[in-house]
């Protein structure tokens, strides 16, 4: 079980891990924060919409737009 010193990173990980598994949740979070030029520990509230959109884009192929957007909305609400 991965833990982060950043509340937002931990919350995003908690939403993703039941869905895509712990290893992939960690990988997805890492790739998305790298995309916006940050680290997991440096996520701030303003980053959430960008991270949510990136995660939504990746989830679409598995669960469709509707469910992926629900996950994104959840992340944006943190």
């Amino acid at each position: 079980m991965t833990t982060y010193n950043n509340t937002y990173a931990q919350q995003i990980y908690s939403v993703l891990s039941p869905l895509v598994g712990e290893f992939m949740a960690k990988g997805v979070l890492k790739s998305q924060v790298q995309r916006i030029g940050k680290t997991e520990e440096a996520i701030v509230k303003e980053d959430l919409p960008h991270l949510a959109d990136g995660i939504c884009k990746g989830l679409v192929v598995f669960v469709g737009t509707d469910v992926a957007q629900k996950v994104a909305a959840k992340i944006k609400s943190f």
Partner: protein
Amino acid sequence: MKKTTQLWIFTALIMLFNLFIFLTKVGGERLLLYVSDLLPVLCAIVAFIYLFKAYQQFKEFDFAKTSWLLTFIGVGLFFVAESIYALLEIGLGNDMNENFPSIADYVWCVGYIPLFSGMALMFYGYKKGGFPMGNTKVYGFLSVVIAIIAFAVIVFLLIPIIKDDETDLLSKVFYLYYPVGDVLLVIPALILMYITSLFGRSTISMPWRLLALGYICFTVADLLYSYLSWQDLYGSGNLIDLAWNFGYLSIALAGSYQMELMKSLNERVDL
């Protein structure tokens, strides 16, 4: 009991029944013929139904819905082909080796197009989504595996069939189409198999994993069928029938897992 659990039990029972009939030959050649021709029809219709149920769970016409629709159409065509084959052999008493290629073969060949397109679309959608692709060394290894499979198919199957003077041109086209189609289908299947391994045992990856497994079963069965049929060694009740039946039921299970995944996500109150 969950629908998926019921389907796993059904799959196990079908496989055991198929194996029992094949090994004991109880009921003689006639029953073997009926089982060999009708079980694939049953397995294909089960896959067809579960794929439709999975397809129905998607609300918007996006990558996911389109790829499941293409898979549904492909398996639907395979079901039609299996039914025609059974009708020709059981109903009309045709010798399928003598009458190769039959109408069923034309339908099977068309069915490969949506199956491959659906699989390729899933891979493209995943790549476009920007999720982790995994280790590049593994892709190198997969490329070597695919190259070895392709080389073996070309050397041991394609070239001998092309050089065979006793086989007419139309039969050659079909004998060649199946292995080539299968190798093309197994490439995205192997890649998706690797990608889903990155997800551990999560529910989101189970449908893709089972789809890939189903296509790999088809590939193994088809390659053996092409070789045996070309050598006039294929008869009803061959052991490779199990791979086709398990392939269909794996695809049915993929549809069932996708349906349950979508239902559980739509019902989750925390999303």
